[in-house]
């Protein structure tokens, strides 16, 4: 055997060996695999970035309607006048600079057989795997008397942006002695502690600027996230905040925008400012792609986030039915990274690893008073399930220094997660 021969054989063997273990042959023979991500919020933008990092060979296109993303976490602070909207806003320049094709358009349809996404621009994008991360849509048929026109007068402010500013302006315009009403929906909905953080920060605003005013929360539930912590804090800080649960007649069954009233099974409440947080569902493209079930949300495989209904389409973030994981920005970001690893593995012909996920939700009861809920999750019997013995809420008997520390950590979390996703 001459050296020349053995060299050729060696190269052949080595490249063949590498192909088998690292690079499946199709990845070499074909063009780069294509992934389209629809939705540029915490879920979608995180998926695109994590996928880019997991495997730079994948061609990634991120489809997003808006050139500026407005984050919901901390937007209750904007409503209460504690921060300004631009602090919530992020662009896609850095994502684009990182090698992801960002297309500003709305996705108008998906053909799972042809593996294409149609855009409002008329363009069609081919994909090998599609990630759907549309967040929520309001169920405009979910509450009699409430529709898109009414929302201009009774804001939901559950998608941050103009609605956030509208609610703030209404609070600023209200005279001292007025009544603010928040209507909170039944589960599931985006950001389970969100209505109660909002109630707290609006109560803080009223206490410090319009102390004769009153805040009523009408709730379609008897239990809510961090309930004991919120209610203890309200008793201590906000005597003018009244919470009415489901069993006390808290469920709003209709609204009347002309009379500025909200009606429950037990009575009618007149509001000077009404914040109606209506029932929700997965964003529209999920429905168009056929990945929503009768609940309006998207059933998924808990290890890969692949739709239970349509193969080749993954769903992450608020739109997904993620078992024990709440619909939060932290969850969306954690799910996105796990989904990205799974998509990269599937495209490379590898078996995806079993993930473990964390969620942490910070809520502010006052600017220097933070509380949290945390959880650790893993797939069990096809659902993302709480790891027993882990997670839970802040202690009820914590000193004020702990509340202040959690408020500081909340601020750190927001800066870090928005940097990871958009920075």
């Amino acid at each position: 055997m001459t050296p020349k021969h053995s060299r050729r054989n060696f190269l052949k063997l080595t490249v063949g060996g590498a192909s088998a273990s690292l690079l499946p042959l199709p990845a070499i023979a074909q063009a780069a695999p294509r992934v389209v991500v629809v939705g540029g919020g915490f879920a979608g933008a995180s998926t695109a970035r994590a996928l880019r990092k997991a495997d730079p060979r994948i061609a990634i296109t991120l489809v997003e309607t808006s050139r500026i993303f407005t984050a919901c976490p901390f937007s209750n602070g904007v409503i209460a006048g504690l921060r300004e909207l631009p602090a919530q806003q992020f662009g896609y320049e850095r994502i684009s600079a990182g090698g992801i094709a960002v297309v500003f358009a709305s996705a108008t349809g998906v053909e799972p057989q042809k593996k294409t996404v149609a855009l409002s621009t008329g363009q069609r994008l081919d994909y090998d795997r599609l990630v759907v991360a549309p967040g929520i849509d309001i169920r405009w048929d979910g509450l009699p008397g409430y529709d898109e026109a009414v929302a201009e007068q009774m804001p939901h402010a559950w998608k941050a942006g103009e609605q956030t500013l509208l609610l703030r302006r209404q609070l600023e315009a209200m005279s001292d002695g007025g009544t603010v009403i928040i209507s909170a929906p039944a589960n599931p909905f985006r950001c389970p502690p969100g209505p109660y953080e909002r109630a707290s920060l609006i109560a803080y605003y009223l206490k410090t600027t319009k102390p004769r005013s009153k805040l009523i929360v009408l709730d379609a539930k008897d239990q809510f996230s961090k309930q004991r912590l919120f209610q203890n804090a309200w008793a201590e800080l906000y005597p003018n905040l009244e919470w009415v649960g489901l069993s006390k007649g808290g469920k709003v069954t209709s609204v009347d925008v002309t009379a500025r009233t909200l009606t429950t099974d037990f009575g009618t409440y007149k509001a000077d400012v009404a914040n109606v947080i209506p029932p929700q569902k997965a964003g529209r493209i999920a429905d168009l792609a056929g990945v929503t079930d009768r609940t309006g949300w998207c059933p998924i495989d808990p290890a890969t986030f692949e739709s239970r209904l349509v193969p080749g389409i993954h769903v992450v973030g608020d739109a997904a039915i993620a078992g024990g994981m709440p619909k939060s920005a932290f969850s969306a970001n954690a799910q996105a990274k796990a989904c990205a690893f799974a998509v990269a593995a599937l495209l490379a012909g590898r078996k995806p690893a079993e993930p473990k996920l964390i969620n942490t939700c910070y809520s502010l009861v006052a600017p220097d008073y933070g509380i949290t809920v945390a959880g650790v999750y893993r797939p069990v019997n096809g659902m993302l399930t709480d790891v027993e013995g882990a997670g839970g809420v802040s202690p009820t008997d914590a000193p004020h220094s702990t509340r202040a520390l959690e408020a500081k950590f909340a601020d750190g979390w927001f800066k870090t997660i928005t940097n990871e996703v958009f920075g």
Partner: protein
Amino acid sequence: MNAPRFFAAAAFLLAPMIGAMAAAPESPAGASSCSGCHPANTGIDTPIPRLNGRNAAEISEQMKTFRAGQRSATVMGRIAKGFSDDEIEAIAAWYAEQR
């Protein structure tokens, strides 16, 4: 050409090619969630420490201390309870390698 030198040369030639095309090694279960709070990038104004490049034994030790309730914590006690020794050590080793 003697055999060892040839193999070394071949490996040298092939390594960059494979390196450039290969995917980044996957992080162990649970690790990717941490960067929601613990910044992967530098220069972020947060009291929450960065984990990248820290000593693996130190990260493991802290996690186990949090888990045992021996160190005062806000969320880390609650989170650490969801991880086994093996999982903690794998996460710690992975973060120690990150820059």
